[in-house]
């Protein structure tokens, strides 16, 4: 029987991973991911999780060991944040190229410098092109649920790609929330054993990671790019399956607020919950506003997003990362690209908010709405809340 408990989200994620019975966890500690991996090593130490916990000496080795493990046919997990994610960077490209379904939690944290342990999305936004499936959680229940779904999605025969589950560092990872935790029997019904398609084994020797000569590199890349694009229906399928098992339905793009609203907030991650409160307030005040929450980031859910925002005149896109020198923030760039040349393209106001753990209150989101509604956001992007002499 599942049970509803008040727990720190990190610990719920660790429990979710434990329930998935990974074979190998290879991880290096970094704030604010630490509680996840600490809890997992407690489980292993107390024989509550039959896995190898490899306490690697860096994140680069964490991901490298994870690939070695996954290539040997083991269900493999790791977690990291910011600098750790960046340190893994070169290996991140290799995981999908080798079609290794490693699952990783990223407790999103601002990239140095200056050094910051606090939350924003600059870490994961620097990994847009690595070829991983990437999903964002908004609350603790999602963090628990999507962590389990991630294994099922990544290991699906039609996918076989690594998957990143993003949850805002501290803002989510360290929050105590009421979470319904599934029991082992329920998870076992949902998540099958991992059946790798190709493994390192002397009984059938293969060569993994050969030299990608120019005559093959492009096709090798297309192979896993296609797998990434094909993962979208699998993501939806798995989320629908999860809904059947738990009653909790997740869509790759969610819509809330006033139906047929002309102005829509677009958010990704836990800031979306603050925006949700703001939108509810505004709607109560009679405003014609709604919200679209992006859950799946890669592959970008093009059709689902366009369906969700259909009819809107204006989108207020919140980015939680700066793209210095770029035309606008990462999410806004994606959305503008999507609507380029289309007659139904809405006006897009891009607001960069919540950088480096800077809090943005519900009231501020109402102010942003008012500013946008009044046509006050004329720049390609507005960085919210900057103290300046200007």
């Amino acid at each position: 029987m599942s049970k509803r408990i008040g727990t720190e989200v990190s610990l719920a994620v660790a429990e979710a991973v434990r329930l998935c019975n990974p074979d190998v966890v290879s991880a290096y500690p970094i704030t604010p991911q630490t509680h996840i991996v600490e809890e997992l090593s407690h489980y292993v130490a107390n024989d509550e999780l039959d896995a190898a916990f490899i306490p690697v000496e860096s994140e680069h080795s964490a991901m490298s060991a994870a690939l070695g493990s996954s290539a040997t046919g083991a269900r493999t997990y790791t977690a990291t944040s910011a600098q750790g994610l960046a340190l893994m960077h070169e290996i991140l490209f290799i995981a999908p190229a080798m079609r290794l379904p490693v699952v990783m939690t990223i407790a999103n944290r601002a990239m140095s410098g200056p050094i910051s342990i606090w939350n924003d999305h600059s870490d994961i936004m620097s990994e847009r092109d690595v070829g991983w499936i990437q999903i964002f959680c908004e609350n603790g229940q999602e963090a628990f649920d999507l962590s389990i779904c991630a294994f099922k999605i990544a290991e699906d025969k039609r996918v076989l790609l690594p998957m990143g589950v993003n949850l805002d560092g501290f803002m989510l990872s360290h929050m105590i929330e009421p979470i319904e935790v599934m029991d082992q029997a329920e998870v076992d019904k949902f998540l099958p054993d991992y059946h790798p398609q190709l493994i390192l084994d002397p009984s059938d020797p293969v060569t993994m990671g050969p030299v990608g000569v120019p005559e093959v590199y492009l096709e090798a890349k297309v192979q896993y790019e296609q797998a990434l694009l094909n993962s979208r229906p699998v993501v939806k399928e798995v989320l629908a399956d999860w809904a059947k098992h738990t009653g909790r339905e997740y869509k790759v793009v969610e819509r809330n607020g006033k139906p047929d609203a002309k102005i829509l907030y677009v958010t990704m991650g836990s800031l979306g919950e603050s925006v949700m409160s703001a939108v509810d307030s505004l709607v109560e005040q009679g405003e014609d506003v709604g919200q679209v929450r992006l859950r799946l980031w890669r592959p970008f859910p093009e059709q689902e997003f366009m369906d969700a925002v259909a009819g809107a005149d204006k989108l207020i896109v919140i980015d939680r990362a700066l793209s210095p020198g770029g035309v606008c923030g990462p999410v806004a760039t994606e959305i503008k690209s999507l609507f380029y040349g289309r007659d139904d393209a809405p006006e897009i106001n891009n607001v960069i908010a919540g950088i480096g753990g800077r809090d943005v209150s519900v009231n501020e989101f109402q102010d942003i709405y008012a500013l946008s509604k009044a046509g006050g956001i004329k720049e390609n992007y507005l960085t919210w809340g900057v103290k300046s002499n200007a």
Partner: protein
Amino acid sequence: MRNETDLSGYEKITAKTIPTECMISSGHRACQGCVEILAMGMVTKATGSNIIVANATGCMEIVTSPYPQSAWKVPWIHVAFENTAAVASGIEAALKVLERKGKRKGPLPKVIAFAGDGATADIGLQSLSGALERGHELIYVCLDNEAYMNTGVQRSSSTPFGAMTTTSPPGKVSKGQYSWKKNVAAIAAAHNVPYVATACPGYHMDLMNKVRKAMAAKGPAYLHVFATCPTGWGCKPEMGVELGRMAAKCGVFPLYEVENGVWRITKKFKKPIPVLDYLKVQRRFRHLAPEDVEDIQARVDKEYARLEALEAMSGGAPKDKDDDE
């Protein structure tokens, strides 16, 4: 807890029982006379086929795996340059867990990591140290041709003092490599692993039996294998194997093992040769002046004396003298 294991039961090779099956096929694209691939092949003859190989980026990886071909007859994975030990750690951990959970069949393969000197002594030192410290049951083989050969002969920390490379060229104010060769085997031994050894293909029995001891280790084993690169060193291809023997005979590359902390020189020479004999047949040392050679001789002698002291101190010196060659 020390990673001590009893290696006395290792499957020793004799002249009559030299294994001949190589896990690398002909048709690989190594240079003519490449002693590195000879060394790698020799290691796999001694390991047998129940292995999984993790390979660093480098000459060996490039010449054995150009898509769509592979010279590897055993399971093999290449991920990146500096992480071979970490990849091997992941494989080893996975094998043990899968076996424990009843998810795999067959006898457990041994995990072998192959990496060059650059991939080991420089960029890969961290991940090597991590793997050794964590005590994974694997054999890490550093194939040492004393420079970053695959990218065009640039210096590594394993390049010997005075050697010419493209990034340590001799010139008006340079004598070539300005630092002394990093002693990675000693670094490995400092991790208290069950087995560390240096070897060269010219003493093939010594090499293969060291591999056999490494196979018997219930913990990490580190093998540092001297591998002549005629292309990079500027020596005649036909004397590539002999050059390794000369390196051992003049003390530039002594052959020893460290078994559970006991140091033992495995090849002692009643008549060592001067380093000059070794240096003069390689173009990479041609620019050295006689006083440079003297400096090298002095340092080589000092290092060798230190090795002998380590041997004596750790209880490795035999009561009777070892046979010569």
